[in-house]
């Protein structure tokens, strides 16, 4: 049997992934749909550093030390690398259940609920699991048709369930979850250091040369917001909590469950979050989708999948599992709050002097996520 090769573009799995992500570089880059604020972040960081390198570094290098701009360049490179790593990587998206799995779960739920009378509402779909002697509730996600693992949450902006969901950050143009939280933290930390560094040398420059101090003022406001954010995330990491859990108050209060994931030791918590294993992506974005049997040629070219194997049948992007007739939207489904995530209790990182905010307000504002 001769292999007839048709020269056409292979379809990679990222093209058929449900959800509202955008992909670049043939599936290597994964971001949210709205990228405007991310471009603003890039512009602000690159713009500020360019001004620093252009106007202040020559003077500082000559009059103080050439190490000053060198260290600034290294720090800048680190900041950009962490930003791009956070923005472009898969945050830990959980793929949606295929129809058979969705049916299996539906049948389990039906069996657990027993007979529901015609007019009655079925009970909410919740599973209780015991983790470290605490009862944790796992909620069912109606979009992804799975019971969400503990600490996972559905981001309605990206329309995906994300493992260890922290928040959706418009500044990096992506969700922050299990896989990219440490890069996000390192980004905020290194950006704080860079801002403090530039701020300090701004002051030195102003003092030494008695020039206009407008730039210093701008840095001052930026500093507070970025350093505040870093401080907040340092606090979360030391308690092994996510922003999402903190906002919802999952582990706070007397009657609530205590955080079962915390090792009760700050050092251990930090180590787990920052030095834990590098989790792989379970979305096989660059895997090749094999054609259906209706295609005219045997797909020899596409049989060699690049990554961990490929599903031979291209599954539908919208889950079309036949649902049990009494499927309904649960009580706790709330409509999305506003349009776009606001993560701005502290002032945003822009160079124009914003309205002055209290430096103590470090908790993020409204996080939009669908709580169904």
């Amino acid at each position: 049997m001769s292999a007839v090769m048709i020269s056409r573009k292979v379809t990679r799995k990222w093209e058929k992934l449900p959800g509202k992500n955008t992909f670049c570089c043939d599936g290597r880059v994964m971001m949210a749909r709205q990228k405007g604020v991310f471009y603003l972040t890039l512009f602000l960081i690159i713009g500020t550093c360019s001004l620093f390198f252009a106007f202040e570094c020559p003077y500082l290098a000559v009059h103080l030390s050439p190490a000053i701009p060198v260290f600034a360049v290294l720090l800048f490179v680190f900041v950009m690398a962490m930003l791009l790593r956070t923005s472009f990587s898969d945050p830990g998206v959980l793929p949606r259940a295929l129809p058979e799995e969705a049916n299996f779960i539906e049948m389990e739920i039906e069996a657990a609920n027993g007979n529901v009378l015609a007019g009655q509402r079925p009970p909410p779909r919740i599973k209780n699991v015991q983790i470290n002697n605490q009862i944790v509730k796992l909620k069912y996600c109606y979009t992804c048709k799975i019971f969400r693992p503990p600490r996972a949450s559905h981001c309605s902006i990206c329309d995906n369930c994300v493992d260890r969901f922290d928040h959706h950050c418009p500044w990096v143009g992506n969700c922050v979850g299990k896989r990219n939280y440490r890069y996000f933290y390192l980004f905020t930390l290194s950006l704080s250091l860079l801002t403090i560094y530039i701020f300090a040398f701004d002051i030195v420059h102003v003092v030494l040369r008695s020039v206009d101090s407008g730039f210093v003022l701008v840095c001052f406001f930026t500093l507070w917001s970025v350093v505040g954010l870093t401080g907040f995330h340092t606090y979360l990491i030391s308690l092994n909590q996510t922003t999402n859990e903190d906002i919802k108050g999952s582990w706070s209060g007397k009657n609530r469950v205590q955080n079962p994931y915390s090792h009760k030791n700050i050092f251990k918590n930090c180590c787990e979050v920052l030095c834990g294993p590098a989790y792989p992506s379970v979305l096989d974005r660059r895997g090749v989708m094999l054609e259906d049997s209706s295609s005219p040629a045997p797909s020899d070219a596409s049989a060699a999948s690049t990554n961990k194997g490929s599903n031979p049948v291209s599954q539908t992007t919208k889950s079309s599992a036949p649902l049990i007739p009494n499927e309904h939207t649960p009580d706790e489904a709330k409509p999305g709050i506003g349009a776009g995530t606001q993560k701005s209790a502290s002032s945003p990182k822009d160079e124009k002097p914003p309205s002055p905010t209290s430096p103590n307000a470090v908790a993020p504002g409204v996080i939009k996520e669908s709580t169904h």
Partner: protein
Amino acid sequence: MISAPRTATDRTKLPYCHESFHNLQELRHSASLANKVFIQRDYTDGTVCKFQTKFPSELDSRIERTLFEDTVKTLNNYYAEAEKIGGQSYLEGCLACLTVYLIFLCIETRYEKVLKKISRYIQEQNEKIYAPRGLLITDPLERGMRVIEISVYEDRGSSGSSSGSSTTSSSGR
């Protein structure tokens, strides 16, 4: 063609054994998918990847409980090894951070190495134990690490009670 040697005692233990499923290729060509069983995650130890070892009733007549439990326990051990937080993971993390994570372009992370081991183990288990019994395990990685999907095949010639879809989705490769 018989691929793996099976002892006579193995075969006599099973009340329902497929004479015709000798290897994976035959399984795909001569069998139709009857059902899929999903082994769920076990979250009692937290968010580490671990699967329940509870034996599903649908597999009661197809495979011995001990073989199934051994497979799941071995997989759980592999995942525990991948996710272990200790000296090696710290070293990997620190080294990667110092190189601005560019080192991951050159070397494989420990997790990825273990995932390859798991994939080879599942393939081996399918060939030796599951395919001869008309079953096929799908690597959990292909299902988002949420479930271990076990496809149950019926011999086309003797299928009478297959109620599942007749898609020939091959799983487990």
